[in-house]
Each structure stands twice: as structure tokens, then as C-alpha cells.
């Protein structure tokens, strides 16, 4: 077997983890409020922009805290100004509203914080790293930064898992995700839950924004990463956290492998749509995604 394949595969898997990070924010919100939050990518951009500009005036730790506070404030604002007036509206209306939020956040973030490309440097090393060179001749070339990002994503998922499984709020969140009405009837305040879940999604967006921001530079294209995360969601299922991770890995690896092995025959640049077609074909077999809840339909 050619070790080049392995190298591409690992590179793809590591990118996939980063997609999963963005997809995670979608899943959290969809689970708790059945809102498909198209603004997740813009939230990443917004968080990264806020952090980068705050770091210019504040020490890093303080800037991180303030950026987190801004994202929580944003969650409050969205719940109060957008979600609450739109309670009980049809799904497509809520979806369009989140696209409206996307436009607003893109414009707002860039007009407040500026639209140049900022470099975000948190001291994560970016040198290429050669692994296993004693096992495999030549070793496997990996970007050290991607490894750290994958570790960060892993830690985040673990923290979220503990939060969801072990804490009181986490249990309430799962209850709401399960059944809104039943949760209300046992006294779980829905509004608080929405604020919490949007805040958590905002914090996830902050982490994703930091990682993507230090990878690409903080600029508008971060908002477009959301479009990469959508097929991940489809593959993994809209309601499943492990699905987002596995979907991210599949999409990341599939994308890179297809670009390397199919790209030359098709003229290159197929990364952009390959993931979508992959997800589409997959959905034809399993309409709810890998780990999505089984869709039961009644008349």
C-alpha cells in the first residue's frame, strides 16, 4: 500500500474534525429548539473577529473571556429579539430568520470590527511534523496545528458530553430535545433552555472560530465554512452529536481522497461539491443520516 494514501487520509480526517466542530453548533441548537441555525458560520466569524480585536487591547485570557461574554450576550439577544416573537412559526420561517441573522452578523461584525484579514496567533505551532518515521519509511507528514486542533475538538466534545450527561442543565437540555411539551409540563423553563443552548452554540462557535481563524486568518471566508459543515450534518444526522463527529471524519477524508484521486480526471476543484453529492447519495439509502433519529410518519 502506498503511504501517500495514508497521509492524505490522515490530513482529511484532521480537516474533518474541524468541520465537525462547526457542525456541532448546528446539532446543539437543532436538538434543543428544532431550529436549523444557518447563522452558525457567521457566529464563528463574529466570535473570531471579536476575539482578534479584543486581543489588541486586552491580555489573551481577558480577551477570551470577553469574547465568550459577547457570544452569550448574542444568545440572549437572538432569543429575545428573534426566537421569542417567532415561536410556533413554521420551520421554513425560522430557517429564513436565521439566514437573516447571518446577513446581519456578517455586516455587523465587519462594520464594528473591520473587514481586513487579521492574523490570530495563540502560539499554536504550525510546523509540519513527521510521524512514525521509524515504522514507515519516510514517515507520515502531518500539520502539527491540525493535530492540536483535533485535540481541542476532542476535548470540547468530551466536555460537552459530560455537560449533557452529568449536569442538571444538561439533563434539562436533553429533556427539551426529547419532547418540548413534556419538558414544559415537568417545569423546565423553555426560554432559559434556549438561551443556554444558543450560548453553548456560541461558545462552540468561538472555539471553531479560534481554530479556523488561526488556520486561515480571521476573514470573511470563515463564515463560508458553515457551507462545508452542512453535508457533515446531513451525513451524521441533524440530531446526533456523535453523528457530527463521524460525519465530519467521513466528509473530511472523502473530500481529500476524492480531490487527489478523482480530481485529476474531472478537472480539479471537486472538493466543493463532492461532500454534498456524497451526503445526497447516502441520504437516499438512509434518509435520517447515520445516527439521526428514525423518522416516523403518521397521518
Amino acid at each position, binding site marked *: 500500500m502506498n503511504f501517500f494514501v495514508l497521509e492524505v487520509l490522515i490530513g482529511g480526517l484532521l480537516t474533518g474534525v474541524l468541520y465537525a466542530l462547526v457542525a456541532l453548533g448546528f446539532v446543539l441548537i437543532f436538538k434543543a429548539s428544532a431550529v436549523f441555525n444557518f447563522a452558525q458560520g457567521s457566529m464563528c466569524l463574529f466570535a473570531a473577529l471579536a476575539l482578534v480585536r479584543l486581543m489588541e487591547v486586552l491580555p489573551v485570557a481577558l480577551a477570551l473571556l470577553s469574547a465568550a461574554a459577547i457570544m452569550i450576550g448574542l444568545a440572549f439577544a437572538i432569543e429575545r429579539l428573534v426566537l421569542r416573537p417567532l415561536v410556533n412559526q*413554521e420551520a421554513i420561517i425560522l430557517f429564513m430568520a436565521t439566514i437573516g441573522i447571518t446577513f446581519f452578523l456578517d455586516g*455587523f461584525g*465587519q462594520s464594528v470590527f473591520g473587514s481586513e484579514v487579521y492574523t490570530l496567533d495563540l502560539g499554536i505551532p504550525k510546523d509540519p511534523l513527521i510521524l512514525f518515521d521509524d515504522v514507515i519509511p519516510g514517515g507520515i507528514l502531518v500539520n502539527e496545528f491540525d493535530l492540536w486542533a483535533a485535540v481541542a475538538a476532542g476535548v470540547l466534545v468530551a466536555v460537552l458530553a459530560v455537560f449533557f450527561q452529568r449536569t442538571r442543565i444538561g439533563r434539562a437540555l436533553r429533556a427539551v430535545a426529547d419532547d418540548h411539551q413534556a419538558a414544559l409540563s415537568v417545569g423546565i423553563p423553555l426560554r432559559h433552555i434556549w438561551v443556554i443552548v444558543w450560548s453553548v452554540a456560541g461558545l462552540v462557535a468561538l472555539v471553531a472560530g479560534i481554530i479556523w481563524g488561526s488556520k486561515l486568518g480571521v476573514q470573511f471566508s470563515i463564515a463560508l465554512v458553515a457551507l462545508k459543515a452542512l453535508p457533515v450534518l446531513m451525513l451524521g444526522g*441533524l440530531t446526533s452529536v456523535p453523528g457530527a463527529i463521524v460525519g465530519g471524519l467521513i466528509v473530511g477524508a472523502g473530500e481529500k481522497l476524492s480531490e487527489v484521486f478523482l480530481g485529476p480526471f474531472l478537472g480539479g*476543484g471537486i472538493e*466543493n461539491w463532492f461532500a454534498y453529492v456524497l451526503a445526497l447519495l447516502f441520504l437516499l439509502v438512509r434518509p435520517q443520516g447515520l445516527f439521526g433519529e428514525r423518522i416516523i410518519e403518521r397521518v
Partner: protein
Amino acid sequence: MIYREAGQFRTSYAADQAVFPVLQDRVFVCAVALFAFFIVPFLASEYLLRAILVPFLILAIAAVGLNLLVGYCGQISLGSAAFMAVGAYAAYDVTVHLPWLNLLFVFLIGGLCAAAAGVVFGLPSLRIKGYYLAVATLAAQFFFDWLFIRVPWFTNYASSGSVSAPPLSIFGLRFDSPAGRYLFCLALLTVTAVAAKNLVRARMGRIWMAMRDMDIAAEIIGIRPLHAKLSAFAISSFIIGISGALWAFVHLGSWEPLAFSIDRSFALLFMVVIGGLGSILGCFLGAAFITILPIFLNQVPTALGIPLSTAMISHLEFMTFGALIVFFLIVEPSGLARLWAICREKLRLWPFPH
């Protein structure tokens, strides 16, 4: 007082089923049509025709097409700009290879190619629904974006990837002037709107609406989902494809794949939702709103004399646009067409309160 139905008796079934059963509506619509056809081309300035009215008319056609799919058949599509692109490039390739063909047939072929693409990308709708389908239609968007950039045959091997439309003429009649372009689009919009309005009142429209309201129940009473959903995709994509060809040939003149990016898909969906799902009138209102709003927002800072950089203006424009979208969704989730319906009810009683 003016808008009074009293005394207008419908004595036949046909009269009761008319598109505009009320006399005043008929008069009003005819007046608007006459005004648009015979007065506007002479009164409007070149800027108004070129920059506002022509894009409005073309996008209204696209909105009608998309509304058939989203509003009447209930299938959310985020890939409509891709079908516009298919229409545009198919029409372009036809003019390159068959330059003698009448432009009307060129547009027709563009529409048919878009319809075929729509059917292919509509196939998954039989298996997947809701958000999953919406994202699946993004596959069409990205695929066609890529196709028209990477496969040089479609752009006739143009080195820059940008292509130009041939001179506009049908039956030897040139319509290159702004007024000519306007009239051509207006004529096509009229045909489309009348056809769509009648289509949704007919058997086809009822099948779609049954599908939208509850697909399983529709299936149980004997509606074939394959037939219903794919026909909606085909007809909607056909109309969107024609509007794409118009957008490229009549509005832009020369264009590159970027003209049909995902932003255009979102704009179209906004038109349909802001205008009103499942309403042909809503398509016009939504298209007018979404076309005019950015132009208006762009002018405001200059008009107020606030010195701002172009980048800043574009950010503020984005921001206001997003905020207004959310605002309109909150105020009237059923769209501008619903506002008109409310006005109409009020008008029927006016000036008496009961």
C-alpha cells in the same frame, strides 16, 4: 365605498371560479397591465428601466417559478440559482452552435435543460424531506457552480470564463434598447404569471398543494408522489431556467458563473418567503422588495451626506438587509401578500366599520 362587491352576482359556475371574481380587481389588474405596457416605457428613464425594472421583472419570473415549488408543493430548494445558471448556459450554448435559431426557442431550450436538471436533483425529494432536502438541493448549487467554471465546453472555451450574449432580436425585430428589453421581459412575465396562476388552480396545483399539506395523506388518497414532486421540480425549474437565460441575455449581456452564486438562491428564497408562500401576487411584491431594498440602502448614506467608505456601506447594507428580513418575518410571517389581503378586507367595508 369604491371597492364594493354588492350587486355583482355570480350566476354561473365559471363566473364563480374566475381568477378575479370581483369587477374592481379585473379593472385594476387591466389598468396596471396597460400602464406597464404602454405608459412606463415612455415615461421611465433609462436608469430606471435598466437598473431596476428589468431585474425586477426577471427576478419576479424566477420567484413565480420558485414559489410553485416551495409555496405550492412544499419542497424547499436552495439551489434555484443553479437552475438559472443551467438555463443561461444552455441558452448560450444553443446560440453558439445554432446561431440561426429564433431567440424565443433558445430561451425555451434553456428552460427545458433547466427542467431536466431540476428533475435529476429533485429525485432525492422522494426519499428525503424538510431540512435534509434543502441542504441536498445545495448539491445542485455547488455542482453547477463547479461545472460551468471547470468544463470549458459550456463557455465555448472562453479564456476568461466570461461569455457574452448575441444581439437580441426575434423575427428580425431588434429589442436592444432599454424600453425594448423591458417590454420583452414584461411580456414573458405576463405569460408566466397567467400560466402559473391557472396551473395552481387546476388539477396540477391541487395535487401539489395536497402534497405540501401532508404527503402521506396525499399518497393514501391516490396521488402519485413521484409524479407530483417531479412535475413541480420540472415546471419550477423550467420557469427559473428561462428567467436565468433572461438574466444573462437581457439584463447582464455578458456574464460569468459568479452571477449565479448561492447568494442569488438565497435572494430568490427571500423573495418567495417575504412576498408570501403560495401566492402569485406575493412573488411580485417579494421581487420588488428584494430588488429595490439594496439599491435604496445603497443610496441612503450618500443621500444623507454621511461620508462612508464603500466597504462600510456594503457592510451596513448587509446588516440592515438582514435586520429587515427578520423584522418582516416577525411582523408578517405569511408575507406581504397577506398584508394586501388584510387591506382588501378593510377596504371592502370602508368607510363603514361593519
